[in-house]
């Protein structure tokens, strides 16, 4: 069992998604488990990532031969498979001890997509029906599986996802020759339709929660929505292309989350980066920041990047970068500005924006009050008008740029900076930069050259 678990965790761990959010459910009499809409982290692994779900493969056997994947057919590794009973029991035993919030079930393709899906459904069915498990279940659908099986899985699970794998069709064709873009997007569209069906069903029979479980008529499909993930850094797409794709997926399929996974070379392949390539962690970090701006801060991909400047500035987070490029938008009067406007200010997040709007009717906000409310003045001070700074700070752009340099970049290590494509900003390479002060000066210089300041 120990060995089996090891192989099947190793095969699943490169999947970035581990969130348990979007479902809200109390335990039923005789059952075990509940789900909280905000999700819950149960531990944090040595790589700093949240562990919320038991993330495993049902099997690491696979009929496909995707170049980037450890489980590909042509890779010479031992193949193991959980029986549905084994995996359901392990999930329950982990769950009882509060190790996990639920199960994240993915799988290699055993025999055929449909056969694999049937076995996955069996696991989830055991949990939901036999154990009356009310905890969180996130399942990966298998590309190419028949829609009836996707439906069955979705009715049992909270969240479904199908990985888009790579940011472009060309890359997908090269690296995952057995999967087609159509086989990925078609189920995504189908699942989206079914999820819209939930909403209608809910309107008809609301308030559903008043009915006993057995009488809740129509089954609801994956109520915590769907997510996807793509690997970045293995293929040549720009940040602009990736972010536009994510934005399209959010709009078209109303995905709950798009995950980005910095490519870690696990296999030698002529079409992939060499084995000693460092994963582009800083780039991944910037993508998550920008993704957050799309989902929570009403930014559009086209505001953050453009075809002429298609990649993120490694030195600045995307919001600071946007603010420096749009001096005409500032300064913002915190006493008057709407919430959406406040959210555009570097150093003001959704929590502090909400507090500002709620409390400013009773007080004149000065810097000290803003600080207590959670505003990061280190960044915000250059962009706002407050009671004790009615005319703003008016500092030269260069000074502001220097103050906004993201100190986190140095935690990622200098070599990360060199992973950004050259040519864009003309950034210094890893060997050129030695310490924080030097890097800061270099960054300001570079930004000055590209008319940032």
């Amino acid at each position, binding site marked *: 069992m120990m060995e089996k678990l090891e192989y099947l*965790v190793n095969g699943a761990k490169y999947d970035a998604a581990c969130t348990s959010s979007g479902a809200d459910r109390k335990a039923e009499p005789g059952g075990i488990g509940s789900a909280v809409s905000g999700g819950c982290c149960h531990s944090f692994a040595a790589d700093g990532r949240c562990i919320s779900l038991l993330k495993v493969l049902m099997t690491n056997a696979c009929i496909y031969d995707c170049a980037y994947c450890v489980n590909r057919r042509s890779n010479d590794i031992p193949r193991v498979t959980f029986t549905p009973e084994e995996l359901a029991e392990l999930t329950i035993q982990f769950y009882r001890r509060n190790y996990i919030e639920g199960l994240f079930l993915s799988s290699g393709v055993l025999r055929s997509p449909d056969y694999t899906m049937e076995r996955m459904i069996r696991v989830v069915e055991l949990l939901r029906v036999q154990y009356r498990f009310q905890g969180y279940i996130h399942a990966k659908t298998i590309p190419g599986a028949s829609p009836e099986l996707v439906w069955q899985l979705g009715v049992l699970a909270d969240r479904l996802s199908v990985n888009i794998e790579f940011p472009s069709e060309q890359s997908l064709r090269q690296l995952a020759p057995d999967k087609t873009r159509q086989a990925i997007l078609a189920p995504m569209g189908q699942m989206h339709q079914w999820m819209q069906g939930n909403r209608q069903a809910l309107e008809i029979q609301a308030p559903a929660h008043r009915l006993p479980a057995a009488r809740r008529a129509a089954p609801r499909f994956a109520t915590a929505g769907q997510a996807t993930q793509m690997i970045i850094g293995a293929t040549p797409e720009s940040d602009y292309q990736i972010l536009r794709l994510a934005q399209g997926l959010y709009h078209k399929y109303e995905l709950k989350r798009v995950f980005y996974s910095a490519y870690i070379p696990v296999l030698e392949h002529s079409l992939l980066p060499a084995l000693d390539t460092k994963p582009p962690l800083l780039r991944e970090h910037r993508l998550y920041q920008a993704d957050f701006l799309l989902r929570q801060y009403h930014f559009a991909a086209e505001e953050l990047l453009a075809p002429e400047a298609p990649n993120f500035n490694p030195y600045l987070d995307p919001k600071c970068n946007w603010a420096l490029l749009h001096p005409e938008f500032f300064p913002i009067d915190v006493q008057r500005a709407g919430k959406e406007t406040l959210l555009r200010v570097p150093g003001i997040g959704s929590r502090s924006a909400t*507090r500002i709007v709620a409390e400013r009717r009773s007080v004149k906000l000065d810097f000290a009050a803003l600080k207590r409310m959670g505003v990061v003045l280190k960044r915000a001070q250059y962009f706002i008008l407050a009671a004790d700074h009615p005319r703003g700070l008016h500092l030269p752009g260069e000074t502001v740029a220097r103050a906004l340099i993201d100190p986190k970049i140095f935690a990622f290590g200098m070599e990360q900076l060199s992973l950004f494509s050259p040519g864009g900003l003309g950034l210094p390479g890893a060997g050129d930069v030695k310490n924080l002060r030097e890097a800061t000066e270099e960054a300001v210089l570079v930004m000055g050259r590209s008319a940032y300041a």
Partner: protein
Amino acid sequence: MREPVPRDVVYQYDGSLEGFYCCLFESLRRGELPAALEDAADAQPRLFAPVWIETDPAHALRVQRSIGEKIAPRALHLTETVFLSCLEEKELHLLHFLLRGWREGAGFLRRGWSDPQLALLLKAERHLAHEAHLLTGFVRFSDYDGHLAATITPKNFVLPFLAPHFAARYRGEHFMIFDKTHRAALIHQPGGSRIVAAEHIEFPAVSAEEARYRALWKHFYDTVAIEGRENPRCRMTHMAKRYWENMTELQPEKAPLPMIESGAEPAIL
């Protein structure tokens, strides 16, 4: 309301919420503002003997009602949450807060975080809520012959906030969460839960099956981290080291969880 006059006296009470309300009652009745309020359980040696405030449930109820009705339900909620927090001199801060509430009415609550005095209490409240939220994930149960038991060492008294979460999740189980810091335990049986005082709790020996699931979980934990992406600082930010002592996956290899305490075996095990 007569404004209490600052006096160099220390009130000592039994550490209960009711006892604290009685301190407020006495302070208002005597028209004096004590220099400190202290729980008898962690009394400091002092030059002058502190004034002992007897807990009278009727007085406590009058104060509690007055907070809810004369100030605002939110003021009562904030008071009772902060009282369970680990804020230094929380009693004195709450005393000043409530006097202001009675003086100014509910309006000043709207100042929220922009007000320094309120911000202090809101911060303590959030610190408690955050710790309770983290612990809903970090609590680790062990199975002792069908009964689940866990130990926590939180800074704030979070058991009342953990109770509804775990009671709903494990409604059909028998479980116990022992708060070693505050010497109390949440005990749940199908049908209901309660919080009781508990000095020590001795846990039985770990069964082979329990040891097996611990080992499987630890192995899962070690395997799921991606080599090449180690980030100890990030892990520490999300999961402070003080939580590790009670977490199965962070115990050194083969050492049993440091849960064994001396004392009587509690009824539920």
